């Protein structure tokens, strides 16, 4: 199971990094969102993979590590705030300069479409 989990996290990271390296804002926002999934999964797994041991006292004999869960919970919410902010920023930029190109204007001019 661990190896499957690790491969999944790696794949998610690879796909998100690829998206972040695009030159347009929408794929980048999607990439950032996916990267935050990958990071959350990674952080969560620092408590190791445990099945049927809820971090709720009295429900099972053993309990999993609650700390990574608490950290990841807030990370999800903050990640949402960041995603939202970057989306609105992209929309604003598109409204202001009429393009969703993320590179410097001069650079985009000189290198052509990308």
């Amino acid at each position, binding site marked *: 199971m661990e190896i499957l989990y690790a491969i999944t996290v790696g794949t998610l990271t690879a796909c998100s990094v690829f998206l972040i390296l695009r030159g*347009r804002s929408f794929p980048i926002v999607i990439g950032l969102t996916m990267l935050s*999934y990958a990071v959350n999964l990674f952080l969560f797994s620092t408590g190791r993979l445990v099945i049927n041991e809820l*971090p709720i006292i009295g429900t099972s004999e053993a309990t999993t590590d609650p700390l990574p869960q608490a950290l990841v919970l807030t990370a999800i919410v903050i990640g949402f705030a960041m995603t939202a902010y970057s*989306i609105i920023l992209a929309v604003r930029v598109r409204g202001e300069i009429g393009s969703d190109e993320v590179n410097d204007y001069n650079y985009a001019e000189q290198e052509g479409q990308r």
Partner: protein
Amino acid sequence: MNLAAIVFLPFLGAIAPLLMGGRSRVHSTLAAGIVTSICIGLLLSLTPAVLAGDIPNYLNSWLPSLGLNLAFRLDGLSLLFAGLILFIGLLVIIYAHYYLSSKDSAPRFFACLLLFMGSMLGIVTSDNLLLMWFFWELTSISSFLLIGYWFHQSNARRGARMALAITGAGGLALLAGILLIGNIAGSYQLDAVFAAADTIRNHDLYLPALILILLGAFTKSAQFPFQFWLPHAMAAPTPVSAYLHSATMVKAGIFLMARLLPVLAGTPEWYTIVTLTGLATLLFGAYFALLKTDLKGLLAFSTISHLGLITMLLGLGSTGAVIAALFHILNHATFKAGLFMIAGIIDHETGTRDMRKLSGLRHALPFTMVLAVITSAAMAGIPLFNGFLSKEMFFAEAYQQDLFGGLSWFVPVLATLGAMLSVAYSIRFVHEVFFQEVADDLPKTPHEPPLMMRFPVIVFATLCILVGVAPMLLASGILDVAVRAVTFATPTLDIAIWHGFNMPLLMSGMAVIGGIVIYISRAELLTFSRQFDSHDAKDVFASIVSATTRFCDNLMQRFENGSLQRYVAFLLVFTLVVVAPELMAIVQLQGSRPMLPVDAISLVGAIVLMLAALSTAMLHRQRLTSLMMLSVVGLIVSLSFVHFSAPDLAMTQLVVEVVSIILMILALFFMPQRIPRASSGRRVARDVLLAGTVGGIVGTLNYALLTRPLESISDFFLANSVSGGGGTNVVNVILVDFRGFDTLGEITVLAIAAAGIHKLLNNLRPFMPSSDVDGRPWHRVKHPLLVQTIAQAILPLALMVSVYIFLRGHNLPGGGFIAGLVTAAAMILQYIANGVDWVKSRFDYNYQKLISIGVMIAMFTGVGSWFFDHNFLTSSFTHVHWPLIGEFELATAILFDLGVYLTVIGATLMILANFGQMTTRHRPRQEGY
């Protein structure tokens, strides 16, 4: 204590002239003068003790871990310098009062001057090398302000910049040298460093430390080849030149060499470097002083030359040489300060400092002429003036030394040559300005200046004569202790005007005669020097600076070409470079923790997750499809949280997923509908390679982590959750209790993000299409009935669920975050189904207010525990001990969670409602729809 006060009073006093801002100049002068006088009084009160052989000191630790102490000492050397700084400082203040014109800002001048004075006092009284360096840098900064005082003049700005660049760079070298010395000695306190002198001299790092420290000293004291900044610093007002270049700033380097003489001197490296540098500077300065046509330029190069003389004496390092050096410091300060002030008077009265225009001033300025003759005679080393005595001692030392073996003879010969030049430019200063025929084309008609402006010069001139006539009476006391502080030996001082016919007297005589000859034949010398191209040091310096800047610019252009994609790629590559070697160092990737078996559902889930992620990436140009794939990824992530015992996470992830996807679909409306094929094949290949490597590394890291045994700090939370936090859901107890402060920070971030988004949407004129990508117009039915009905039916249900989730959160999966998101999602559904106006007419609530209330509730819950004498956010459960406690404890935790709940609702809705309303308010429509 008095000692520390002497250093800090000028810093405090620097505020006084500024406070006098609006008043007349007299007030500023008085404030500065009084501060200086108090310092002189304090210094005088300590003087008897120092003269008696005590070393008053003051010690207070500042950053003990770095070895930096607020430590001061007043030994003989410090006393000599502190006396010069304060005494000359006071006279300069008096002089400046008359010198500054009504257009100049007197408060700023005196404030900078006092800052500088305090920094200099700090250097000379520091008992800690790091502290001394600190003040050293302060002098660089305050002298920058003083030299650039007339900042409207470009040469003042350039001169100030050059002085700062050179002395600042030297300061950095000095710091490195001091760190080396401190490391070798094990302490930065002077006594400890002195005690470790032999260790330092025999250490492998002695030479680097010596060179670094000498770099600092030579740049500050304008020694060859760093002398070029000093003439350009003459753009400063003359009182500043008189102060900085006679007694203080440039003497700081000399002071440093004298201070560290017991530690560094006595080696071949020391005397070779220091003596030769001093000698070169002596000759160089004297020669150029003779050629300069600017009065202050002449004095500047003469200062360089005299500094070279003192440096050379310190390089020789014998007791006699140290006596001569310290005595010459004293003498040079008096006659050079006087000469600068005379130059200032001439400039002030005639309107020019150009010696080609000035001549015959003996009629207009007879009194000033007398003063000029006295001080110039001291500079030239004419008998009965103080300069003669120290120069005589210098000749004696130069003659006696045999440090350079068979070549030692060239030192006295060159020293005599330097003295000849010195006599020549001294004669020139007096003769060209005051004698010859009367100039009739001066910008102003000169008159004698006010008596008080001449007063400081009179004091200096009197001192030149008195010390010259009765040296033992006036100077021996202070010199005795100062020499003792440098050499640790009791010197036998025997300064006399007449030593009988001997070699030094002969050298003096030759210097005077030679000087006169050189002066008479100066025309040939000028013709000779005209053959050489003269480079303006300012231009050379400027071209070096601009070449450096250009080089850096070009270098930056290589990296910063405006492509954000490239920056991200750089960052990723750098991360790989750092992380990969660490992973290679792991011998066995798989740890000892037993692995879980793979079940079929997990396998299917993982495969779907990976496929969805890959499709998101590959189909990113088909925006909606890509987004749908992303939502699949999010859903399976939340399912995996369910599988791996994290119900809270699963719920949060699920709702956040829904909200984010709605937000992104909204955003799609405003983004370009077609994404052009953007990347070249090469770029895609590069990105795939990079992404694959990063993914591989992250996966490897995760695998290594997952298979290793867990050592967690969570046992504390598990053990204390029920007893300390009163809840069985440990995740929630951590959020609202154990790590409540973090959560407070988190909801604040959420609130700030929402506020930022609110601001970003302000006045936004977004691009909005009136049809979809294939040209089909939007449908005229904005709110389908079916959706409307279902949405309204769901709302009460969803609210109920959210309240339930909220209330049970402390003991079962749930809590403020999840409940808030559920409520927000239900509300968003109303917006989608019915439109902004529909919702507003029914539920018109200001979300900003909701956010503020939420954050405030959470914060005041925390503050509440202060009233029970407990730390911020302490749960009341732990400290209240009467029957109703259980209830009360529950109340505080849930209050905090209520704050979280409201903030999450407010922030989410503010983001989505504000954004969504743009689509309904300004949506363009096509005819007929």
